[in-house]
């Protein structure tokens, strides 16, 4: 049985904060087929396009028919834990700090044998449910979980290394005026977040549902304006070392035509809030989070960006939003590479139009703020890197893969 995560003790000021170490990172290029699936929370291994046999570990030719057509496809997640061991001695410093470590060999229902990390509630000889997780090094790893929920299973320490579960963690939401920020505060409180800092800029401006936000357990309103370098730096100085999960909800959505007189000004404002805001945020908060990547069992765990799926394909009706989020997407890759040093995950949650004021003129389906919040928390619990929320986001993603030119032609119509 997993031991529930207790509220962490206050930190001993005499103890050094350990440097974050990472599990072994080298992988073959082919193996990154697993990384892609893990990032999205899918379980996919190679399946020969000619003889249809599943194969693992990742190969460049099918061992049955030598075909080189070996796409990674979603595979059945069931398997049997054929043998289990607990590693007490390891050659690797990351694992050494986390011993003992359970690994086992799983006979997958689809055929191959897979060495995997094993959840504490799995027993040898029993059926397990496989998933692909991103480990602290950001690399894909197979994980064997019990087939049905066990009490507090999400608190298993090996599982928690693969995830960023908000339970007992401290979170910063950058913009509490945003309905998504408000929904997130509520959902995170329900998910057991220990402290929820909610940034509000220009506090002299009242905003809807402010009182309800203040009433949520664990919420603390803090001054934060991403367009103001000093405001960001001041907050980081104040609470930077307490932020385990940072969720950037700051956005600036203004419709408008590319040729409008004020278009550059507006996109400038949008960029100030989104791209430059995120850069200010990164500069102030990321170094501390990287340093705290291994600060006990509850160190800094994840950075979350909420992105419009139109970061991937410009929607002319929301041109400046699309442009700014495309820039933010690129920034997120930069930041992800930096955060990786501390084993801190970066998750991008892509959504289509939200059911909020600024998407008023766009037709449904829209994503309710509460649905986006739920998806973000679910993504953190599963340790994902990419989350696509709602029908529009998934539609755009699929069409982009199928034919980006068709999408480009159709999206403006």
């Amino acid at each position, binding site marked *: 049985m997993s031991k529930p995560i207790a509220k962490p003790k206050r930190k001993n000021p005499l103890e050094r904060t350990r440097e974050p170490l990472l599990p*072994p990172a080298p*992988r073959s290029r082919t193996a990154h087929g697993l990384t892609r699936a893990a990032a999205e929370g899918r379980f996919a291994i190679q399946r020969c396009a000619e003889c249809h046999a599943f194969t693992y*570990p990742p190969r460049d030719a099918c061992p049955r028919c030598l075909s080189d057509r070996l796409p990674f496809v979603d595979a059945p997640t069931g398997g049997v834990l054929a043998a289990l061991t607990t590693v007490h*001695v390891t050659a690797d410093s990351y694992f050494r700090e986390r011993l003992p470590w359970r690994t086992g060999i799983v006979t997958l229902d689809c055929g191959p044998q897979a060495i995997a990390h094993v959840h504490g509630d799995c027993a040898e000889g029993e059926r397990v449910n496989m998933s692909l997780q991103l480990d602290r090094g950001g690399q894909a790893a197979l994980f064997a979980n019990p087939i049905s929920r066990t009490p507090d299973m999400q608190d298993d320490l090996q599982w928690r290394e693969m995830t960023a579960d908000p339970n007992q963690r401290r979170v910063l939401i950058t913009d509490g005026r945003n309905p998504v920020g408000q929904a997130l505060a509520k959902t995170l409180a329900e998910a057991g977040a220990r402290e929820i800092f909610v940034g509000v800029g220009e506090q002299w401006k009242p905003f809807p549902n402010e009182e309800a936000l203040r009433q949520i357990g664990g919420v603390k309103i803090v001054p934060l304006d991403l367009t103001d370098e000093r405001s960001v730096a001041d907050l980081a100085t104040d609470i930077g070392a307490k932020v385990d999960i940072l969720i950037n909800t700051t956005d600036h959505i203004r419709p408008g035509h590319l040729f409008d007189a004020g278009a550059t000004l507006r996109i400038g404002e949008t960029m100030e809030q989104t791209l430059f805001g995120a850069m200010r945020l990164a500069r102030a908060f990321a170094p501390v989070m990287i340093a705290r990547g291994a600060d006990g069992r509850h160190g800094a765990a994840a950075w979350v960006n909420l992105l419009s799926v139109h970061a991937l394909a410009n929607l002319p009706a929301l041109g400046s939003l699309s442009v700014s989020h495309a820039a933010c997407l690129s920034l997120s890759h930069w930041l992800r590479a930096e955060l990786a040093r501390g084993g801190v995950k970066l998750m991008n949650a892509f959504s289509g139009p939200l059911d909020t004021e600024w998407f008023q003129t766009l037709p449904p389906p829209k994503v309710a703020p509460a649905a986006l919040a739920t998806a973000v928390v679910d993504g953190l619990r599963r340790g994902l890197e990419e989350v696509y929320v709602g029908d529009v986001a998934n539609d755009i993603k699929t069409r982009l893969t199928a034919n980006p030119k068709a999408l480009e032609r159709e999206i403006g119509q």
Partner: protein
Amino acid sequence: MNGTGAAKSKRQSYDGVVATVPVTVPYQRYSIESGQWWIGRALRALADGAGISHRDFDGFSVASFSIAPDSAVGLTQHFGLSPRWLDTIPMGGVSGILSLRRAARAVQAGDADIVACVAGDTNHVDTFRKTLSNFSRFAQDAVYPYGAGGPNASFALIARNYMKQFGARREDFGKLCVAQRDNALRNPHALMKKPLTLDQYLAARPIAEPIHLFDCVMPCAGAEAFLVMREETARALALPAAKILSTIERHNAFAEDPIQVRGGWAQDAGELYAMAGIAPADIDVVQTYDDYPVISMMQFEDLGFCEKGEGPDFVRKHSFTINGSFPHNTSGGQLSVGQAGAAGGHLGIVECMRQVIKIAGPTQIDGARIGLASGFGMINYDRGLSAGAVIFAGDRA
């Protein structure tokens, strides 16, 4: 396996080819020297032992994990060799058998007269860790990131499964380890100098359950080597030699077994004995590849000393000591002598040669006429992929 349906060709015998001058460069736990240094020491010992110059070695076969960035070619210039036949066997614990097989054929065909088969590795403080993480692509992608337990964790899973399936107990593995330690106490080169009791074995700290401390070999620096030549060459040089009665190798056998319960020997053991013209019962001394005792137990089965699944019972019936029944790993094996990298697979061959030539000294058993040595190697992913074996007979066999 023979998908074409064509008849398998009959192996030719190794008549007239011998292995001689078994050489061990005494092991060290850690060495600040290079792999090249250890190989150089072995070559010198071979030349001294044969009473000829190393320049007379016209064949050279080398196995090492620690000579990078050199290849075998680079080593010829390093050591002043000018061979007309050259080979590298980067295949871990099966390198010794493969080196012997290839050298024997080269000599038989006249491609070389005297082949020096050398395995040597150094062991720097961080050598083992580096070897683990770079061992193979599958290990890099699909094993090492899972706790980095190395072979201990991989063989833990194999041992775990074997215990479950065939009823082996830790005591059975322990018996083999204790017997080998008894044997090692006679071997001045063994790194392990203290006696081991079964109680101590059972009480040892866990490494990766069910693997505990005394199930593991100690990585070290060292070298093993021998010469392969025609029988008349050996006679001319007045070198006592071991005849090669038969050898086998097999790679990636039984891929369909979910977890390894047998090695490639099981596929070719029949041919091994047929070619030698003997039965398993005719073997006087056995040197298995003992990276873990469970693998030795598998070899008893796969090499025909008992049936599959009878390994545990077989272990319970014998003593495995030099003076006891079924003398096994008489030098102490890798478990008690140490594992000198790629030389681990040569240890048993060299000891087996000494036994049948009757120059094993303190570890010599009585009446060793025919010996078997096996090799096993390359845990590429979830199992050891390569298996090999040789049967030697003494001159007076």
